[in-house]
């Protein structure tokens, strides 16, 4: 029983023991392409840097464009505000009155109004108004029934 359960103790051959104590020939380690690896890293880093710089340059360029547009808008707003003021000054009733006097105009008389001698269709006229032949109506294009 003890022989059956006892661990097998195999004696190491003396030749193997002797071989352990000597250098062993090993296979050549796989070739590492160090240069390629370094180049790849350099390219990645360079690409990253270049990309970052390029993006930054693009952002800066866009920013400059935005500022130029801002300046353009501001200048346009300034010009518009100035034009509004200029137009209002030109419309000043006192200026127009003075200019009219310079041109020889005189103040109009009392307000008058004209009563039309016939109704216009737009005023509800339902009958055709007979226009005398040969009667020249100087305001025909404006006031006549044939308008």
């Amino acid at each position, binding site marked *: 029983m003890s022989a059956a359960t006892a661990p097998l103790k195999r004696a190491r051959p003396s030749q193997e023991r002797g071989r352990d104590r000597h250098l062993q020939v090993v296979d050549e380690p796989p070739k590492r392409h160090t240069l390629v690896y370094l180049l790849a890293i350099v390219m990645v880093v360079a690409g990253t840097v270049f990309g970052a710089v390029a993006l930054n340059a693009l952002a800066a360029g866009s*920013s400059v464009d935005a500022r130029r547009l801002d300046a353009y808008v501001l200048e346009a707003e300034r010009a518009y505000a100035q034009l509004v003021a200029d*137009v*209002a000054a030109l419309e000043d009733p*006192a200026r127009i*009155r003075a200019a009219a006097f310079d041109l020889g105009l005189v103040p109009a008389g009392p307000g008058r109004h*004209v009563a039309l*001698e016939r109704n216009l269709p737009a005023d509800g006229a339902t009958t055709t108004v007979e226009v005398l032949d040969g009667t020249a109506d100087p*305001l025909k294009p404006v006031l006549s029934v044939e308008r």
Partner: protein
Amino acid sequence: MTGQPRRRRVTAARLRTRSGVQLAVRRIRLTLGIYGLLVVIVVGQLVHIQVLNADEYADRGVRQRARTIDLPSTRGRIYDRDGDVLATSIQAATIYGDPRAFRPSETPDGTPLPAGADAVAVAQELAPLLGRDPDDIVQRLTRDAHFVYLARQLDHEVGVAIRDLNLPGIGVLTEPHRVYPAGGLAGQVVGFTGIDGEGLQGLESQYDSVLRGGPGMLVLERAPGGLDIASGIRELVPPEPGTDLVLTLDREIQHAAERAAIDAMDEYNARGASILVMDVATSEVLGMASAPTYDPNERNDADRANWRNRAVTDVFEPGSTQKALTVAAAIEEGIVSPDTELAVPDHLRVGGKRFTDAYPHATEQWSVADIMERSSNIGTITIAQELGGEVLESYLREFGYGRTSGLNFPGEGPGLLMPHDSWWSTSLPTIAIGQGVAVTLMQLASAYATIANAGVAIQPRIVRGTVGDDGRLTPTSAPAQRQVVSAGTAEQVQTMLERAVSGDHGTGARAAVSGYRVAGKTGTARKPNVDTRGYSSEYVATFVGFAPADDPRLVVAVMLDEPRPFYGGVVAAPVFSEVMQAALIARRIPPESAGRSLSEALEDAATVAADAES
């Protein structure tokens, strides 16, 4: 012998070795302790900066590299009722200097540095552009300061020219400048702003919070040299533009009123003149003129007394224009009617004082309408005595006396109407004919607008609404209304007032307007003494009326201060006629008389043309 020393030496060596190891260990521990302490300090500081006070340090960092530019808001414009610009803002150039550039300095290590620029040479170049004396510029540039204004709110082109000179120590800023393109048109109404854009006078002051808007802010990131980083942070808080204000003024009517006021001042050597035009149906102010006037663009050259809007700030005794209100109260109370006849002598003694009519006459049987037409003091006093002081006072207050009109215009006066229980024995007759009571032209016009508007008083207003970012007009809230007298009473007074203009004995004949029926009343009141009791020898001439008389659309009130001659019917009535005519045309109100036929009009036009040619 030999063994013992060797053992000692071994022991000593061992001891030395042990103490050396221990020393090394102690040193290592000490070093580790120091490193540990440093790590604790560093970590603690990190926690302090990055965790406990992270926000504060972040703000510090932003402040060090961020540049904040305040963006001023654009002040809202002021338009007349038709959208014509009365006040607007443009961009102006402000020139500043940095005196540090014009004086020698030294580096931190004490090395002296010469001045960066010659103040005299710079001043010589700037002087013609700034329009200033070179010595004054030099004096400013050599102050002990970091920033001095050299000139503010110059034309934009001047700023561009100075910027192009690229002078050392000189800078150009852009800031808004308030301008009034129509010059003095409605100057006293619109008012003006200060150099920093704050409303100081008139509607610019009253509606400053509406017009002003809110400032904005631009945050940029800058490099240590001060240059902006183009791709850095850029936060823009746009300024909130001010709200535009649309007035009820009609520019054409305003111009006609101002011109008439100035002409009347010149023609009658008056000290001042005020004219007010109102729309009867809405109590909107269409024109409000005061003379002498001023140009808000050149306000510093004008007398400050001319800045005020006399139509709402100055009070005067209304004189006979008051009689219409006294009679209206009596009719409303059922005491008289237009046909009621009264015995009217030419004088009357009340409270020991003798009152007279404007001219002597025998005791006449005049109707109330006659009394109004002839502007009889005695007849009106007789009616007022029937009415009583308490009732008269209550009606006058209902017409708007003794309180501001509701415009809330800066400096608006409430007038003066004493409570009836404080009246003297002569107060009733004097107040009944418009003396011993003071009103603004706005109050007087508003009272007549009430009569013209079927007895309904509408709170006057001068602002139609506001225009915001969406470009839409937001009208002001509907004005308060109150019925002062009945429509019947108002109509009877209207008829009597028409007789005062068109009647044979009417005092307001010169107020007539061709083609229109006009109703109104003259007023001539002595001015009270400023320093003592009683009245001076100076007068205020007034005329208030409305047209067309049968369907009143417009009210015009005219007041001339110390004119020569002084009768309201002589000096104020023609001014009324001129302004009313212009206002009726401007508002496209047709004449009441029958229009001419087209053929008649053409014949007239041909005649006029032929006359002109000949």
